[in-house]
């Protein structure tokens, strides 16, 4: 099956508290279809929670939506999370560590690190019109 013909699932999520859990439910169904194990399914769900929360926070207004596309390839699940926020420069995001967080006023900011640790590949495309995070997990 070529990537072009790969089955796709598309979600549009309104920016509502905890709506990221709707994305994880979809991911679980897809992971089951792909026969991914429990561990990989849980890692995908956790990464998706973080990517969706980031997208919610980057979006310009509560009226915006976040788009999530799942592409089911033969041996890989590709997930794209897109927001219409003002974009950011991933190279300027500092990798957090707990030693710095202890004693700092800002304890948050772990999303990208978690996504990178839990998924096989992560890429960012960001412009002033929005950001797409593309994550993959191999079978």
């Amino acid at each position, binding site marked *: 099956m070529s990537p072009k013909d790969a089955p796709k699932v598309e979600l549009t999520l309104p920016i509502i*508290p*905890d709506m*990221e*859990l709707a994305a*994880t439910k979809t991911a679980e169904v897809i992971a089951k279809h792909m026969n991914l194990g429990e*561990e990989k399914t*849980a*890692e995908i*769900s*956790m990464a998706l*929670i*973080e990517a969706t*929360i980031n997208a919610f926070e980057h979006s310009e207004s509560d009226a915006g939506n976040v788009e999530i596309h799942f592409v089911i390839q033969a041996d890989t699940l590709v997930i794209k999370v897109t927001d219409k926020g003002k974009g950011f420069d991933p190279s300027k995001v500092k990798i*957090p*560590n*707990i*030693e710095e*967080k*202890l*004693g700092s006023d800002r*304890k*948050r900011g*772990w*999303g990208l*690190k*978690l996504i990178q*640790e*839990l998924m096989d590949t992560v890429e960012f495309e960001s412009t002033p019109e929005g950001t797409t995070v593309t994550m993959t997990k191999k079978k």
Partner: protein
Amino acid sequence: MSDFSLNVREEGDVVIIETAGYLNNVGGEKVSEACYEKMETGKKLFLINLENSKVVNSIGVSILIEIIEKLQDVDGKLGYYNLAPIVEKTFNIMGLTKYSTVYYSEAEGLQGMA
């Protein structure tokens, strides 16, 4: 919005907080409120049972870092037990396990806190 609830009890000097539901910002704040309330009465040892919180996010977990920080000021300890594998992995990635302890049962936790 997801439901989050907790139950707080004491076993000797140890405060046990049992959570149920999504540990996000709302859940994390509830846990921290419960800890800080008990810290005001002099408690310094806390165990969190996460058996019924199999889904977490980094914002909720960040609030646990805040609790660790406050407990460091009073030579207190924080531990957890009954973690789902992905929750334990998240705690490892975020470094919580350097400053707090994962146990595999309440009994082990109580022994570790002694």
